[in-house]
């Protein structure tokens, strides 16, 4: 895993409100689907800046399009959580 993957994962986690705001994250083929405690602290612009190709929210679920690097990002997220 490269440093950039870890940095990207850390930036995504921070933009989602940090580990304390995460209930769970479901890694799909091209997306991370995060169930968060407080959707108000999620920073969509910061997710974009972290390399997300798209962000959609519905209630407490935030979908972050990250592309095929989802595997390495998910591994890095697991280490950070």
């Amino acid at each position, binding site marked *: 895993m490269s440093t950039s993957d870890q940095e990207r994962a850390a930036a995504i986690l921070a933009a989602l409100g940090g580990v304390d705001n995460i209930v769970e994250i479901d890694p799909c083929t091209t997306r991370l689907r995060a169930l968060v405690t407080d959707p108000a602290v999620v920073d969509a612009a910061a997710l974009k800046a972290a390399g997300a*190709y798209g962000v959609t929210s519905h*209630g407490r679920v935030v979908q972050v399009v990250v592309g095929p690097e989802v595997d390495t990002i998910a591994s890095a997220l697991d280490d950070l959580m």
Partner: protein
Amino acid sequence: MTPQQAARRHKHLVVRDYLAELIATELEVGDAVPSERALTERFDVSRMTVRQALDALVAEGTLVREQGRGTFVAPRHADFEMRLTTFGEEARRRGLEPGAEVLEATTGPASPRVARGLDLDVGAPVHHVARLRTADDTPMSIESSWIPAHLAPGLLTDGVPDSLYAVLRALDLAPTWGEDTLQAADATPDEARLLGMTTQRAVMRTQRRSYAGQTAVMYTQSTFRGDRYSVFVPLREARPMLVPRPARTAPPVPEVLTPTPEGAS
């Protein structure tokens, strides 16, 4: 199936299963199915029961009825896989000869929807190519593609290229990943006319974002005929859910869960 078992089932389902088996094993595309009269005699059922069976197979697209001529085996559905290939490639791999009729080819400002699909600012110049796609000369889909003009400035200079993917590949922008979103819909009158749809109106609409690495290279909206097209989607086991480690989690706050809709993945 024993006669006792058969009797317990709805009679029209027995006729329908018989026809489906016949179509799968003995009949070819374009062959006539046995007449209503032959079927009523064979199964000792009413003509209404036979019609119910035939109607169901017509409705699902297995049979096609031609006014005054009879009921025939419909062309098979093409089971296209949702993956990053072109219509032409997918058609050839199924033994079908792909074709295209250009409906529109322009360069202009990106609409908000296209801009979102291509990670561009609204109004940024994009090439737009709309084509009617055919397989063995049968209309299959209407495909509208947008490509950022700055990525392929000369795309439409010498007319519309046969393959947009080939142009992207030549520019070292071959799509490497993407996302499709699918919806069922009724064809608009224009779509039905272009696609040559007469009795059925069901279509599948897709939106595809294609990326070459980190660059959005193409946004495509397609409308596929419901009576000619099946989608094949390989599945795999879901990855394990990531959850914060217990020691680091704050105590759970009691809260009512909101519904979590399924999105495309």
